[in-house]
């Protein structure tokens, strides 16, 4: 019988093909190539879901604590969310850019084989909701990060009056700004919810004093950064490149959290 790892490898190959097709569509402006890319992403997600289902069967419960389970869920969420966002904001030609981070993570998992298992003491419902909230927030932050990065580049190009291919094909500044803001807002709510669920379940597992591991600490730092983003945007009227930098920094913190926590101890470690 086919193993979950084999299916995961298969999905990775399909994702990479989708990335190449989407990048080619960006370079050529071909709508048909772009559709091929979208179809491949959809196929990749289905294969990937199948691999997670097998992993679930192998573990007896959903493997949220394994890197493959956690980042796999994150990648599927992100690919799907980015598809919706790209369609809604009519920026489908840049879809490949939204694939980069989850794809790098998946390739890293496949190559490095980190199979660390988190022993969770949370109940299945709490754990499921906690995971759903965290993964949703990560997906939204990934999309906002990519949007912020594109905004940063587009702003530089317009200021430098670099009327070339990139300026022509990157989305308009206002679209990127608004899209980034909405994703940060959504991600912030989801992250807050995830953190609250975590804190709500913590006393049962660890008693009154909750141990502060690296992931919790840096998550709180990221939460504060995104809070700062929303505050400056809504209260102080920051926009454009300045605000994009805050969103980029926030995501880099999140990224570091996720990567380091995979190799650290504490409540999210083994």
């Amino acid at each position, binding site marked *: 019988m086919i193993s979950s790892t084999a299916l995961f490898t298969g999905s990775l190959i399909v994702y990479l093909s989708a990335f190449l097709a989407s990048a080619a569509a960006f370079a050529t*402006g071909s709508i048909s190539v772009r559709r091929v890319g979208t179809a491949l992403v959809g196929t990749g997600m289905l294969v990937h879901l199948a691999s997670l289902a097998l992993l679930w069967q192998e573990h007896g419960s959903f493997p949220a604590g394994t890197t493959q389970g956690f980042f796999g869920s994150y990648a599927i969420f992100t690919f799907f969310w980015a598809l919706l966002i790209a369609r809604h904001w009519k920026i489908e030609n840049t879809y490949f850019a939204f694939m980069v981070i989850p794809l790098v993570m998946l390739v890293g998992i496949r190559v490095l084989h980190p199979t660390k298992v988190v022993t969770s003491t949370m109940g299945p419902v709490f754990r499921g909701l906690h995971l759903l909230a965290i993964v949703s927030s990560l997906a939204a932050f990934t999309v906002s990060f990519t949007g912020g990065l594109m905004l940063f580049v587009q702003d530089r190009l317009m200021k430098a009056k670099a009327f070339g291919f990139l300026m022509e094909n990157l989305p*308009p500044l206002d679209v990127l700004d608004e899209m980034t803001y909405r994703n940060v807002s959504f991600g912030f709510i989801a992250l807050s919810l995830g953190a609250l669920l975590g804190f709500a379940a913590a006393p049962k597992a660890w008693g009154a004093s909750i141990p502060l591991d690296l992931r919790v600490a840096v998550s709180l730092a990221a939460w504060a950064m995104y809070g700062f983003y929303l505050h400056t945007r809504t209260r102080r009227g920051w926009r*454009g490149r300045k605000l994009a930098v805050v969103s980029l920094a926030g995501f880099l913190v999140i990224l570091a959290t996720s990567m380091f926590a995979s190799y650290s101890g504490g409540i999210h470690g083994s």
Partner: protein
Amino acid sequence: MAAEQPQLFVAGLSHKTAPVALRERLSPGADRVPELLRELVRPVAEGSNGMIEAVLVVTCNRFEIYGLAHRGPVELSVVNRTVRESLGVDLTEHEGAVYLHEGDEVVGHLLRVAASLDSLVVGESQILGQVKEAYRVATEAGTAGKILNRLFHRAIEAGKRVRTETRIGHNAVSVSYAAVELAKKCFGRVEDRKALVIGVGEMSELTAQHLKANGVTELIVTNRTLLGAVNMADRFGGRAIEFEKFPSVLDQVDIVISATGAKDPILRAADVEAALVRRRQRPLFIIDIALPRDVEPAVGDLPNAYLFNIDDLQTVADKNYRERVAEAHKAEELVRDEAGKFARWLRTLKAVPVLERLRSLGAQLVADELARLQWRLDRLEEREQRAVSAAVNSVVGKLLHRPLVNIKKLAQEDDAEILLGLVEDLFFEDPDAVGEEPAEVPQQSGVVPLDAASRRGAGTP
């Protein structure tokens, strides 16, 4: 034989051959076009070669009559007489400006026109709509028949393909339109945006026109002379404000177009910076088309202020035009492809008479044979008679099926006329050979005499 067939032609003039003074005289007005079309296809005197189909494409850059001459090359006098009587222009006096294309050249020409490859500004989008409209008018006037119907459908298809499969119309090539395109890079779309126009010169008017056409909701116009601002505001449904007050509305607008004749900058960085604070850093897009410049260059360094001057716009327009020219090569390929499809379809039409004659021949053979056997068939029951009749029909039908399909297919080739001649020689009696001995040989032995084919130089199959 070919000379007797209807022939496509286009007669007309365009921006490439005729000055605007002549082109404007050839503008009949939309309401007179149907009448002119019907006049063109009016039956002519016996012996003259009139038109049986006509479509008139009239734009500010071209006047073209697409027609189907009744037989062989068109007589330009027919066209000229109608144009002279209807529009008062004698085309013979402007021979250098008038062109005439016939046959396949017409197809290529119309397809290039619809694809905007023959336009003054290559890649402009209006011409496809104008070709569609010309065709619609001709259809309603009843002057577009089978051939021109097909030709215009093919042309419209080619035009659409060129617009969707190439980037020929992708970017602006005029300075004023480049400003609007740049604004879209800032805001995505300019609908629901507000614009401030400073100065009422030609360039600011053109840019305002493009902005309005792209859906800008409100135009605020200011000028040193308020009356000029009021006049322009009236033309665009905007509002005019006094010149001294314009810095105070910078926080209300998203786009600023400045084109005054001022010697010193009128829009200072401090004003823009203050406005950006008031507008909570929402982007401000500023176009400075004036020479000397109206806007302090330092404005471009402010975050969320995007400043472009006339040189920037010209750079964009030039770059876009170079891209269009490059795309035009791809478009030419598409046009050739579509023209080829039409030419193949047109050639299959030539096979229609031969195909019909072959079918008639088959039906006649069946009828003759059944008539010859009638005295024997009478002895059979009606059901058996029907079976025999069906069998004979089936044999002839099956025998003819493959040749008919192949003739239709081969008729699309360049040398279709040779093939069709060969088929005629094989299956039908040569009128020159009436009374000659081998006339009945094929029917008796099933062997087709090849002397007719060899006379045409087709050789032995």
